[in-house]
């Protein structure tokens, strides 16, 4: 059906840690990063997953036009784990025009626009002269910035499909590599806190009061987070280290149901998971762990559990790591795929923290504690507004 790809390098920055080592440490200790919301001027009674140190991040002078929280977070991500260096190596080998950039975001640098609206000219209503639309507000700005920061000249696009964005980028990259348009791709997601999402999810009454508790009987909504997560994809070479992680398959679907509510039976989610398994040429029983979308809202978790139970029964251990990281929205797909990679390389199944009493109606095996064990193949779900669904299947090389 589709080719497999090697994840040659990956990294992640979220509220639980900056870089793979810190992320692994937090996951191992079942330590979350959610805290009461004190972001900017937001007055919302909820918990969020804020990344420390973004404000201190300085962009190179030549890239000042990109200066905003989202691109600072992107740069913070690129600096971890030798990621930028690995990309430079890849570009050196293949040529900078043969490395693509496909990133997901939901709100890009919209915070910059929110702040600029407060500084409008009192008479004309004009935005301040220093507001840079293309480098901050426009959805493409994050890919444009990353591309220039990494000196890449290959094809690029931002996938902006709400909370499935940075899962879907893996599909775009896979097709471009398969079409031999490129030899490598930087994929991932960057999404940062802003008032639009905080007040927006609050308006929908979907923000949790405390740290979110996905799949808990008493779950009460999402904790909004932020993250930058990147992967460098290449064709699978002839020999691989045993713990190397491969992208085995991507599956996508649409609900055709509602803009902000999932189809209650999870039919769209099921279709995406089936398509991902088909692309990976795997049966449901060959999946060792499912990283659930698991946002922590009543309806999302319920629909997803029905979809998972219909396809996998109750046999495959599953959890949502959003209890630890919060919901990184457009960066969630890539962040959680990289959490799966970390788990696979370190032989444990990560728990869904904060959750204490799993909703008995769910009918899936939800992990409340980390479980040691070899995981060879995982499935990671990402669903979003507009009824967009994407599932990824990743696997170890051995």
């Amino acid at each position, binding site marked *: 059906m589709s080719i497999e790809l090697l994840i040659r390098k990956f990294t992640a920055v979220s509220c639980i840690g900056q870089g793979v080592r810190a992320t692994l440490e937090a996951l191992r200790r079942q330590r979350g990063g959610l805290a009461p919301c004190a972001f900017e001027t937001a007055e919302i009674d909820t918990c969020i997953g804020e990344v420390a140190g973004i404000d201190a991040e300085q962009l190179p002078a030549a890239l000042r036009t990109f200066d905003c929280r989202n691109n600072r977070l992107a740069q913070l991500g690129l600096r971890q784990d030798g990621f930028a260096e690995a990309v430079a190596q890849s570009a050196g080998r293949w040529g900078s025009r043969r490395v693509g950039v496909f990133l997901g975001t939901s709100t890009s640098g919209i915070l910059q626009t*929110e702040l600029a609206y407060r500084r409008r000219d009192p008479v004309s209503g004009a935005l301040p002269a220093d507001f840079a639309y293309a480098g901050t507000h*426009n959805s493409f700005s994050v890919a444009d910035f990353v591309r220039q920061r990494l000196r890449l000249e290959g094809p690029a696009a931002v996938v902006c499909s709400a909370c499935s964005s940075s899962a879907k980028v893996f599909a775009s990259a896979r097709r471009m590599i398969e079409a*031999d348009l490129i030899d490598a791709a930087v994929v991932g997601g960057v999404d940062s806190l802003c008032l639009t999402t905080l007040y927006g999810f609050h308006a929908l009454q979907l923000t949790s009061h405390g740290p979110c508790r996905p799949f808990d009987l008493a779950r009460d909504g999402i904790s909004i987070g932020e993250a930058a997560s990147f992967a460098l994809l290449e064709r699978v070479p002839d020999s691989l280290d045993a713990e190397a992680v491969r992208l085995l398959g991507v599956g996508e679907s649409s609900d055709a149901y509602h*803009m902000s509510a999932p189809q209650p039976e999870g039919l769209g989610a099921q279709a995406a998971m089936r398509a991902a398994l088909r692309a990976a040429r795997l049966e449901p029983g060959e999946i060792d762990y499912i990283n659930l979308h698991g946002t922590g809202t009543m309806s999302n978790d319920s629909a997803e559990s029905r979809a998972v139970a219909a396809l996998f029964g109750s046999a495959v251990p599953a959890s949502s790591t959003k209890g630890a990281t919060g919901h990184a929205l457009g960066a969630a797909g890539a962040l959680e795929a990289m959490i799966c990679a970390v788990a696979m390389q370190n032989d444990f199944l990560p728990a869904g923290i904060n959750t204490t009493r799993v909703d008995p109606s769910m009918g899936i095996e939800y992990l409340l504690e980390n479980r040691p064990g070899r995981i060879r193949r995982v499935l990671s779900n990402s669903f979003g507004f507009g009824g967009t669904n994407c599932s990824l299947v990743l696997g170890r090389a051995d």
Partner: protein
Amino acid sequence: MSSLAAYIEGIGLLGPGLDGWTGSVALLEGRAAYVAQTTVLPAPEGLPPAERRRTGRVVKLALGVGLQATSRAGIDPASLPAVFSSSGGDGHNCHEICQTLSSGDRQISPTRFHNSVHNAAAGYWSIATGAKTAANALCAFDASFAAGLLEAVTQVTVDGTRVLLVSYDAQYPPPLHEKRPIPDAFGVAFVLAPSASGTALARLAVAFSDLPATRMSNPALEPLRASIPAARSLPLLQQLALRSPGTVNIEYLDGRSLAVELAPCA
């Protein structure tokens, strides 16, 4: 690279003074004069009344051109994976949210919030047509049309499937308009197929090029091409209208372009 190709089976077009593909051919061929007119957007077909009331201009635009293209191709829209590409999405909706957030009362409407996602058009499209297929939602600033075309043709070629491409943009109200001066709404859609069929209008092949983008020789159309990202498609539409083989260059990244080679089908 030359193997990246697709057959155009249907075209949809709406823009200032451009009302549908068939109605625009004479203008694009140079046989009729351009008559400036604000883009006329159709009512969104297929949506339940509650959803219909919630749709903004870009959704009407995207649904309008998408349905024109699938109807011309004689294809059930629900059967097609789709690639939606836009530089800015719904500018009015975005302005209203930013305005509210900068005011004393930050309670934004839930509908405005869910309409603020860049994939709103893709979401409403799937609700309106019943398409449960994969739908992408891309942005590449001024290269959004080319990025969408590349994504769609790659999907056609690699996955061997028909794909619907919808590229659309509309204006921001002030004060964002001054920062991103898109003058009006423009949308274009293509049904692309992996192999020739009786309904195919033309074959297109796509390759990266160092050449700059082709400009419109018609002085009334060049400003549209240059000011609306989705209208960067105009040279391709003109070549299609002329029904003669030829290559046009569509603006991509870094001052480079996508060379699109067109060969009309008999």
